[in-house]
């Protein structure tokens, strides 16, 4: 699918969802009751307008027979993105219960293994531990920002 068409369709969906939500927003009890809604409503309309134009532009280009661009993403890249998201969610869940140092060691270890595999395990260990302790030292001791 062509990129502009994808963006346009996504935009129509976003603008409709957003505008419906905006209409249902609670009204202000002081001043103009519609004041909190006006700006979002305007945004929804502009988004809808821009998205429709994008779709029309793409359809016209298609008629003229222009080549379509593929989305193009490698499987490995997507797998690594998914991996990072999973690790990030795990990190978010364990960050406060187990504390900064163990959680970060797990998180960084996971990311480094995913990016480099087991072959460079020495580098992985050095970078993982190095990052965790340097960050901990800088934040906790130098900047006095408390980490869990």
């Amino acid at each position: 699918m062509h990129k502009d068409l994808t963006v346009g369709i996504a935009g129509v969906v976003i603008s409709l969802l957003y505008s419906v939500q905006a209409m249902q927003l609670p009204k202000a009890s002081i001043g103009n009751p519609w004041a909190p809604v006006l700006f979002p409503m305007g945004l929804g309309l502009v988004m809808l307008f821009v998205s429709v134009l994008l779709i029309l532009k793409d359809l016209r280009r298609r008629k003229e027979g222009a080549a379509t661009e593929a989305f193009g993403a490698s499987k490995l890249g997507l797998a690594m993105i998914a991996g990072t998201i999973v690790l990030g969610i795990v990190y978010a869940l364990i960050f406060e219960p187990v504390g900064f140092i163990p959680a970060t060691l797990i998180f960084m270890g996971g990311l480094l293994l995913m990016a480099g595999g087991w072959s460079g395990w020495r580098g992985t260990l050095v970078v993982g531990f190095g990052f965790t302790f340097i960050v901990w030292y800088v934040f906790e001791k130098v900047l006095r920002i408390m980490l869990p």
Partner: protein
Amino acid sequence: MGEIFTNLALGFTVVLDPLNFALLLVGSVLGTVFGMLPGIGPATGIALLLPLTFAMKPETALIMMCAIYYGAMYGGSRGSILLNVPGDGAAVAATFDGYPMAQNGRAEAALAISAIASFIGGLIATVIFVFLALPVARFALRFGPPEYFMLMIFALSATASLTQKSLLKGFFALVMGLMVTTVGMDLMAGVRRFTFGVQELQSGIDFIVVIVGVYGIGEVFTNYEKIAAKAAKPVQEKFGKIWITMEEWKQSIGPILRQTPVGFFVGVLPGSGGTIGSMMGYNNEKQISKHPEKFGTGTIEGLAAPEAANNAASVGALIPMMTLGVPGSGTTAVMLGALLILGLDPGPMLFEHHPHVAWGIIASMFMGNIACAVINIPLAGLLVRVLSVKPKYLYPLIVGLAFVGVYTINYSVVDFFLLLVFGVVGYLMKKLKIPIAPFILAVVVGGGMEQSFRQALMVSQGDMTIFFRSTICNVLFGLSVLSVSWPFISEWRKKRKARQAGGTSGR
């Protein structure tokens, strides 16, 4: 005149405070390193390093951040010259002649002239800045809510239409960014908007989370594919003396002096910044050169011109950010965000209420440029080793830094989830070729923009004509219309030129 020098003297006493000066040096080195890393331009660098400054005094934090900014501008071209991989958009023009120079065995001269041109460009631009800042800030004191709203409309529409070729996608990004800012408690009426019942969203989505997510995590996501795709190119690590000959100096000084003002004024305009500034600098020199055919084969003028223009543009871009409180690029948007976090009110009042901060930053531009030149000439050989950091370590480190940094904003892991969401958003935007700068700009100024809009309407009791009552408003509106129609005008002119050329050759 005397006023300017008194203020500058105040600024220098701020910068020369030992702690501030030390952090200026640290910032310059960190900026150079971050600027060099492929894909991590100044905006990402500043965003990732922002949490370091939370515990600092405002002037110290901003001096360090500005140093990171100049450092990144200097560092961005190292990769262009040695690897043909620019650190960011503004360093693209440096690949045209910088990389061929390095290929021809003149890497030392290329590294030296890029730093020298950056230094001279940055320094001259700073002098212009000093004389322009106060008048612009004083003028901006006349702005009320309707003027501010129109100014932001202009800044946003110019960014949307100038940053990339696709005007529509620019506006798409812009509106999306503004939508993000409508999440959270509406401070003027106390209404909760788009929070979907999530307690933590009441205070809104912090723009730092958005910036770090879109630039930092999004960048890593985009680059993941490259880890396996191609083996890293070897980087030249042994250098002779990094300096230039008298002959090369004579060839370069003209282009540097000519393209510095060009870069500066392009930088002041919202939306254009370093990328367009450096491209214009390169093209101008090519056009007036007696031997344009040499451009692209490794001629030193072709590197000196964009490098001077690029750094002058980066200084120029600070003018609207500091004096009007409206950023004109992704990077200055991040810096404006930093100002807001530090509790300062950017814009004309900054000069009135916090002169030591405003002039401290200005004085730091002089010192920062000197520091960066010193770092980038004698130490260049050492620093370019950063370019050979393996991606398999680099990307996990960036992700780690992003997560830790984001946590320190609100001390809440909810931001981790938002970070991932915006990482994916940034990735998709790049894949779908939606420009990122208008999105970031909108996220940073959106809140203030809606406030100006509503304040103006409150004053006029809902009458929309308030936005067209003053001359300033009308001029800004005219400029917005012009910026939006600019792509069409330039398209039309190109077509006409092509037709004329076709007409004459056909005869």
